[in-house]
């Protein structure tokens, strides 16, 4: 429990809580990017440089932008919506229960964990080697998945009217 960890954890929790609680959709996404950036900083704190930078690149650079665009494309200026569902209390109770269960499990299950083992190294070279040898099959599958997702997303999102015109 060091000071950087506390600051970053507070940022992450504040950002994500704001993302789930604010009324304006775009504000939610902007708050979410703060949370994601704090998470990336936590990864760096843990010594996982590659994952941290990938997190920023993917979440701040791509997912947040996508979400923001989706919010703007589906925005009705005249429509005033309640931000939360009618039975929001149930959701909150379930989430709180899940957190309580998890917290109890963590405090019971990992009490014997070593406090600070020597930092394992994960240089980009090692990650690259592992990706190209031991994890080559998952890598190829993820590549296929991403290609399929890209094409699928374009086909789903394209306006049917545009599709007819282009044919």
């Amino acid at each position, binding site marked *: 429990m060091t000071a950087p960890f506390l600051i970053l954890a507070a940022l992450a929790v504040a950002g994500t809580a704001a993302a789930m609680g604010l009324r304006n959709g*775009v504000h939610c996404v902007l708050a979410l990017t703060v949370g994601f950036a704090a998470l990336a900083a936590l990864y760096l704190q843990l010594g996982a440089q590659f994952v941290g*930078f990938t997190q920023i690149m993917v979440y701040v*650079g791509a997912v947040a*932008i996508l979400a923001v665009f989706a919010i703007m494309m589906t925005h009705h200026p005249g429509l005033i919506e309640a931000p939360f569902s009618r039975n929001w209390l149930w959701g909150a109770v379930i989430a709180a229960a899940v957190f309580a269960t998890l917290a109890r499990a963590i405090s019971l299950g990992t009490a014997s964990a070593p406090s600070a083992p020597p930092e394992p190294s994960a*240089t980009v*070279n090692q990650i690259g080697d592992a990706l190209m040898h031991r994890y080559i099959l998952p890598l190829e599958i993820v590549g296929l998945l991403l290609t399929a997702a890209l094409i699928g997303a374009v086909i789903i999102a394209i306006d049917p009217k545009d599709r007819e015109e282009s044919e």
Partner: protein
Amino acid sequence: MIAAALTTQDVDQIFVLIKHALLACVPAALQPIASAVLSIIPILVAFPLLFAITTVLERKGLGRMQNRYGPNRVGPAGFFQPIADGIKSLTKEDVVPLSADHAVHFLAPILLVIAAFLGYAVLPIGRNMVLVNLNAGVLFFFAVGSVVELSVFMAGWSSRSKYSLLGAMRAIAQMISYEVPLVLASVVVIMQAGSLSLVTIVESQSGYTGIFPHWYLFTPWGIAGFILFMIAATAESNRSPFDLPEGESEIIAGYFIEYSGFKFALFFLAEYLGMFATSSLAITLFLGGWAAPLSFLTFIPSYVWFFLKLLVLICFFIWIRGTLPRLRMDQLMGFAWKFILPMALLNIFVAGLWRFLPAGPLNSIRWLVCIGVLAAPCIVLSFSLKQKKKLLVRTYHFAE
């Protein structure tokens, strides 16, 4: 006497030596902080200064290209113009639109400038002159670059103006489209150097054959990668001919139209810092970073070479800006996805081919094969993408 005692090596390392000398005066407990501050301040000074010089160079150069003088009133030959501009933007009223989202509107330029400065953290400006030698330096650079998109969106969205929103949409679409070829064009260098650390990449190019350096530019995939990288970098930094996000004739100034005074100046600063950063990355990846271009010129300090190369690239950007007209949006997107992206992918293949073809006596064959593999699809692509529509002679019905 002291000057005579300085060897060329000392001159090369003078900033490093000064920093160490200054650090020695600081108590040991404060040394990490002092070291960080001493490393950051030169970057915070040097690059905004370069921005000031570039603005006046750009305006004068563009003026000369368009048969006019540039700014020539303030100071000798107009070279104090940036000072006047700075005073003006600092003293101007800061107008915030009434309906703007104030918090986001305020944060956008700050985030943009911070993101633009962060990129310099991993760029080696001279020998032993890098802020942090990150293991994943190139990745860091591109990760920081993606924050720019978000701040551009924040600026465009929070202004509640149709022009700024359109500008932001254009900017984001363009930046995302060209980020892909930008990364792919730099992948070839990473493949060859076997490292994501920019310091290692520069060191792997620092040898000489005879008097000629081992820059990655002097390989078929290197030159193709450099050209692709520079095209993508031009688009990424919203420079002409890819300056649609701020196309003056259509959307006036794009995403920062509702900003004034100092915040407007921050946007300009960030834009130019982004251009310098991507140019510096191009220098580091393809042009040998701070290495001297010829082996007998190594007595000139490394940082001088770095900034000279940077200036050359900036002049090239200005030259391009003075020459080419702005593209249309569909041309821009088509160019990115139909030409640059396939060529960048092919370039990666060529880099692999280069690696596995034998060097030595068959070197010229290796060159020919690689150039052939690159050139044939390039010509085919460019001819097939050429617009075949014949333009009709326009007739005017009511003018006669």
